[in-house]
Every structure is written in C-alpha cells, then in structure tokens.
C-alpha cells in the first residue's frame, strides 16, 4: 500500500498533527520519568533490612532517673521480658534499621586519618545479633569478654576502647575493595578496632539517596543510656499480645519511665515508608491520567477525521480499496503520528530527566524505561484508534455517490 496519500493528507492537517505529536511527546517524557521515580522508590522500599522482620516486637523505654545504674536496670528488664510466655529471646539495642536515631562515625584506616566514609554504629546486649536474626557471612560473633559499656555518660567514649567490630558486606567492600576484610583494623573513634565478622545486610536507621544505606558497624558495647529499645523475638501472630504484656511488665518493674512506640518491626518499616507509598500512589494515578487523556485525545481526533473523510473513504472503497485497506490506513496514520511523538518524547524524556536531576536529586533515567514507555504509548495509540478505524472501514462505497 502506497503511503503518499497518507502523507499528503497529514500535511493538510499540519497544525492538528503537530499538536498531537507534541502531546504524545510530552506524555512519553513525563510517563518515562514518573515510571523511573516509581521504580526507584519501590526498590528502596524493598531493600533487605538484614533482620528477621516478621518476628520482632519492639518497645522503647526511657528511664527518667538518670543516676541509676542503667546496665543493671536493663538486665532486670530483660530478665522480666524473657520470662514472658511466647518470647523466645530478648535484647536491648540503641538503634534499629528505620528507627530514625542514627549514630554515625567517620571510618578512618589510620589513627586520626581522613574518614573514607561514614557508617552507623549499632550497639546491643550479647544476644542482640541472635535476637535480630542477622546473617553472619564470614568471621565470628563477639566474645563475651569483648563487651564493654557504651559509656554514654562520657560522650559515648566506649567507641575509643572497643576491641572488635562486625561490619556489613557493603561497608567492607567500600573500605577494603577486593580484599579480605576479616582481621583488618579500622578507626571509628580514637582507637583501633579489628573487624572480626561480616554480616550480609544491616540497613541504617535512616536511608538516603547515596549508596551508603547499608554501611553499618556493630560493636560489642552495652547500651547504658537511659533511652533503650527492647527487642523481643516472637512468633508473628504473638506480637500484638507480647507488646501489650511487655508494657505492663515494664511499667510494673519501674513506673518512673516513659514507654514509647510499642510496635512490631513490620509496623515501623511501614511507617517509615508511608510517605513513599503516598507518593507512589500519586505518581501512578498521575501517569495513568496522562495516558488516559492522551488516549482520549487520539481517539477523539481520529473519530473526527473519520467523520470528515467519510466521502473520500467511500470513494476509495468504490475504486477498489478493501475494508482492511481502510483499517490499515488509519492504523498506519496513527502509527506515524504517535511514532513521531515517541521519537521526540525520547529526547524530551532525557532532557526532563536532566532537569529533575538538577532540582530534585533524582537518579538518572535507566535506559530501559524509555523503549518500554515508547512502546506502551504506540500500543495505546493503536488501541485508541481501533474504534474510529473500525468505523471508517465500515463506511460503504455507496457514500461516494451521495452529495
């Protein structure tokens, strides 16, 4: 089938065609970028935290009396919580992934040297790694004699004396690329700390856009702050009950404290990503409305053109064009217009991405989104034109003979 009448007819509607191309291009550019933002957010939400998320119940206890021996208090609390039915293990920790309070240290490789990066310090009682269900992929756990107090009363000076640390795989790779991290010495504080183990993942309490979301160090330091989080390992269905009971048990032991945020780890994670979920819903509905509007525009204009050209369709049918030819004609026409829009849209998509990267610290548009977005728009165009094109192919040749 010759395409020259198609081009000739398009050139008679230059302005309308240009508008349609522009609309498709803008839609393509916006939808590609929106899809990439959604993809990035979803990826963030799916990051493995490194702990046994479904089995953890958490409660934060803040003792008002700071003069008390906090270590002894935590021990008493832990013993009481351990005795609760349904609780298999308990530990006291100072922070958790998604908990928000982040204690980061610059990590140097020589004393007083420049920090290569920063990493979160996680501290807890001896069972903490078991309770949290972390995966040690190399080395060993901390030895009982390695534990020292965090010494929060003296500016957390435990960090200057702690002998050993367990780091995440990501941090090990950052500090010692291509080398065996076990046995290496790092300087998170004033003194040398030996890496004795590596865990697969442990996300930081707050995530950021940079690659360092998994840079964590674990230290054998006992939290001796008034503010501590108790982690209870329990069966998923028991979490609610355990949390209620834990509040009673803790308040009964010492009423001069604030109990905050009794929640499961799952809840904490959901709360952390609540804004992202809102944003994803919003972006999705925006992208869908855009596609819908564009599809409606294409269908509207196509049905218009069909009406306008009823006579010429009739003439073409009368001189031998089949219904299929007519259908093809409109489909090809749509393909040409939408295709041109998509080509322009690809350029616009990258331009828009550059603009967004400048203003919103967004990541580069992964190339895969562009062909997929373009293809989706072409399909959408074909779908939108199908109805009008079918109607066109139904125009009988006899129309040609009528005024």
């Amino acid at each position, binding site marked *: 089938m010759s395409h020259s009448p198609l081009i000739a007819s398009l050139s008679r509607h230059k302005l309308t065609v240009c508008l349609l191309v522009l609309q498709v291009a803008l839609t393509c550019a916006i939808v590609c970028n929106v899809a990439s933002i959604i993809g990035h957010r979803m990826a963030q939400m799916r990051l493995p935290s490194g702990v046994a998320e479904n089995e953890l119940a958490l409660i934060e206890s803040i003792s008002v009396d700071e003069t008390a021996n906090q270590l002894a208090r935590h021990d008493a609390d832990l013993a009481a919580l351990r005795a609760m039915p349904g609780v298999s293990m308990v530990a006291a920790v100072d922070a958790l992934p998604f908990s928000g309070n982040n204690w980061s240290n610059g990590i140097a490789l020589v004393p007083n040297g420049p920090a*290569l990066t920063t990493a979160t310090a996680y501290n807890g009682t001896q069972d903490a790694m078991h309770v949290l269900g972390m995966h040690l992929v190399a080395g060993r756990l901390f030895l009982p004699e390695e534990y020292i107090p965090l010494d929060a009363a003296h500016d957390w000076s435990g960090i200057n004396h702690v002998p050993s640390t367990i780091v995440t795989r990501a941090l090990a790779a950052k500090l010692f690329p291509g080398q065996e991290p076990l046995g290496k010495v790092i300087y998170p504080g004033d003194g040398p700390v030996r890496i004795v183990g590596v865990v697969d993942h442990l996300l930081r309490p707050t995530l950021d856009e940079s690659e360092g979301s998994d840079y964590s160090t674990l230290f054998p330091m006992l939290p001796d702050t008034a503010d501590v989080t108790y982690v209870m390992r329990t069966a998923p269905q028991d979490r609610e009950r355990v949390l209620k009971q834990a509040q009673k048990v803790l308040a009964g032991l010492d009423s001069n404290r604030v109990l905050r945020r009794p929640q499961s780890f799952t809840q904490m994670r959901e709360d952390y990503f609540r804004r992202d979920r809102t944003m994803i819903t919003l972006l999705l509905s925006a992208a869908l409305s855009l596609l819908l509007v564009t599809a409606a525009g294409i269908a509207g204009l196509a049905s218009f053109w069909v009406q306008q050209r009823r006579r010429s369709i009739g003439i073409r049918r009368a001189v031998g064009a089949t219904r299929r030819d007519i259908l093809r004609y409109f489909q090809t026409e749509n393909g040409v217009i939408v295709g041109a829009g998509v080509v322009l849209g690809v350029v616009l998509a990258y331009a828009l991405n550059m603009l967004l990267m400048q203003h919103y610290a967004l990541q580069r548009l992964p190339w895969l989104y562009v062909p997929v977005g373009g293809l989706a728009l072409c399909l959408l165009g074909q779908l939108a034109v199908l109805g009008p094109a079918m109607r066109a192919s139904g125009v009988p040749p006899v129309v040609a003979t009528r005024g």
Partner: protein
Amino acid sequence: MLGYYATTAISSLRRSKALAVLMVLVIGLGIGASMTMITIFHVLSGDPLPGRSDQLYAPVIDPRPLARDHSEPAEPDGNFTWPDAMNLLHAQRADRQAVMAGGAVPVRPQQSGELPFYETGRYVTADFFGMFKVPFATGSAWRSEDDESHARIVVLNSELNRKLFGNTPSIGRTVRLKNADFRVVGVLDDWRPQPQFYAQLNGRVFGKTDQFFLPLQTAQDLNLDFNGRMSCWDSGGRTSEHCAWLQFWVQLDSTAKAEAYRQFLGSYWREQQAHGRMPRPAHAHLFGLMDWLTRQHAIPDDLRLQLSLSLGFLAVCMINVVGLLLATFLRRGGEISVRRALGARRWDIFLQLGVESCVIGLAGGLLGLGIACLGLWSVRQRPDGYAQLAQMDASMLFGTFVLALVASVVAGLLPAWRACRIPPALQLKTQ
C-alpha cells in the same frame, strides 16, 4: 452580540456532545490537579512571622573540616558549634540574637500515679522571645541574666500548660522535667508558627510545635537530651568545637546593619582561621528568613515534584484541548464560510469561536474546582504535618477560575485564529 454567541456556542457544543464532554473533562482534570498543588504551595510558602520576617536572619558559617568524602553535602546546613554560637551570642553585634536547640524530655505530672510522658520543646537563650515576637498569655520571658545563672525556669506553650495545670494559674508553679524542677515563668498564647522556621529544616517542619522553652545553658548544665541532627567530626562531645547542632538567629533592623553583620561574620571566620580552625575558605552568609526557608527546602521535595508534575499534566491537557477545539472549529468550515460570505468579518468569527472556548473553559473550571476540593481533601488525609494546612481560600478559589478561563482562552486562540482564516468562497465551492 456576546449573548448570541454564547447561545450558538452552547447549541454547537450540543451537536458534538461527546467531544464537548471530553474537552470539559480534560480541562477539569488538568485544572483540578494543578490547583490542588498550587493551593498547597500557596499555603506552605506563606510567611511564618508576618511583619517580622524581613528583619530576621540566619547566619551561616561552615565549621566543618575540609571535605573528606564525596557523599558529604557541599553546602553547610547552618548548624553552629557550641563555642561559635556562644562567641557570637556574647559579641552582641546584632539588635537581638539567640541560640537554640531542639530538646525532648520526660515530663512528670505533679499528680502522683500518672506516668511520665515525653514532650518536645526547645532550649533557647533569652532574646528568643523578643526576637520572634512570641505571644505570651500570662507571665513573661526570662532575661539574659537568667541564662548566665543557669536558672531553672521554663516557659510553657498553651497545650502543655493545659495538660499539666488545667485551667488553674500556673505562673510560679513547678514542673518536673527529667530530674529537675523548673519554675514556670510564662505561658504562651498557643504559639505555632508554620513552618517551624527556627528549627533545623528537614522537610518535616510543618505541623510541629514546641511545648516548652527553657534556658539553653541550664539544659546543658543538666545534660538534658538534644533532639535533632548533630554532626561531629572529632571527639569532645556536644560543647566542643567539633559538633555542629545549634541554631543561631539574629534580628537586624536595617539592611545597613545586615551588611555590617555580614562583615562581622566574615571577620569572625578569618579570626578563627588564624587560630587554626574552620579550614574551609571563609564565606560567611547571612540569609533572610524567607530566603533561608527556600534554600533549606522547607517545602518537601516530594511536594515540589508533585507541583511540577501537575503543571506538566495541565500542559498536556491543554494541548489536548487545543487539538480537539481545532478539529471542532475546522469541521465547521462550511458554516464559517457561509457566515463569512454573508458578511461576517474575521473578527466576528474569532469572537464567536472565542466565546465557545470560554464556555468550555468555564465548565471545565467548575469541574476543576470540584476536583481540586476533592484533591485537597485527600491531601488532608495524609499523615504529613502540612496536611491540615491544605485548605482552599478565597484567593485560590478565584485563582482557579482565572486559571481555567485563561487556559481555555489561550487554548482557544490558536484554533479560532486558524478557523477565522477560512476563506469564504473556496470552502463553499468544495461543498
């Protein structure tokens, strides 16, 4: 004549009902989405301290060591170290100046038997209240002598005051915060500036209020807990010169004074460099309050992205409507030719078609208003602090209609111009 055009517009829209409905829907969606976001922006970028904000400045000096890490932000976050904040406070070079930090403490109710609860507030120096024109319901602020003597006094915001004392007068009474007793010297008249501009800005500053204020030096004395972002690059603790965590604000009554203060900051910085501190190139900044809010992205990035997206959506919607209008108008080429042949000027045709696009625009605007109200309602259901501020006001209501009309007139211009250029005779011949 316009009335006649309006009638013909409606009757011609009736003829192609589906298309008219489609155009109204598309305009309504575009206007509704963008007006939702514009309204939120309008509300959030308001002045937290009208009448005072242009005299308030946030000084910025960068105390950090030279960058060691690419991930570190290049821009300083405006936080001060304890020694710098105290030096500048005691230098008294501004009309008023105050140092402050966020705090969170357990509050113990006086009634026995009630469990302690956590409350967030601020540790500040005396000028804080005068500088920000904080409204007092009863009592008054403390004086800088109280700062120096580490007095155990507290100013309560109305909500915490009600929670602790009900409706009984509270001035002179005692509140136990953590382990120390504080005497209430003032109660605020429900002070909640939006955003909480003086705090560390992190995109979540809307909806927050401080419930207590107590002297910073006292809080340091008692080692009360700091609440916020503290970055340290060396040991020494929070009063050392290696930890930035305090906010410092100054009031400067004229631009000349602001300029002088900027000079002073620069000289302070160079002086510190002479002592081997602050290795980064000296470049002291002094930001006005509104400028500071913009620079620190007080409005969350997600919202700005949503605004851009909604405007992009509006653009696509309008291009769509231009295309559809163009098709409608050109289809009526015959009718237009006849009118032209009967003596209508181009201007008449243009006006008639313009009125038609206005009718569509108005209908779209009405629909858009409904959608915007629905959108704002859904925003109010969000858990974010700014959510409750998302309310349509009179100016935005008016703005919606203006936007709808302007958009549809602009959208109608091109098609109307194209259609009124249809020559009278030629078109008749081809019929």
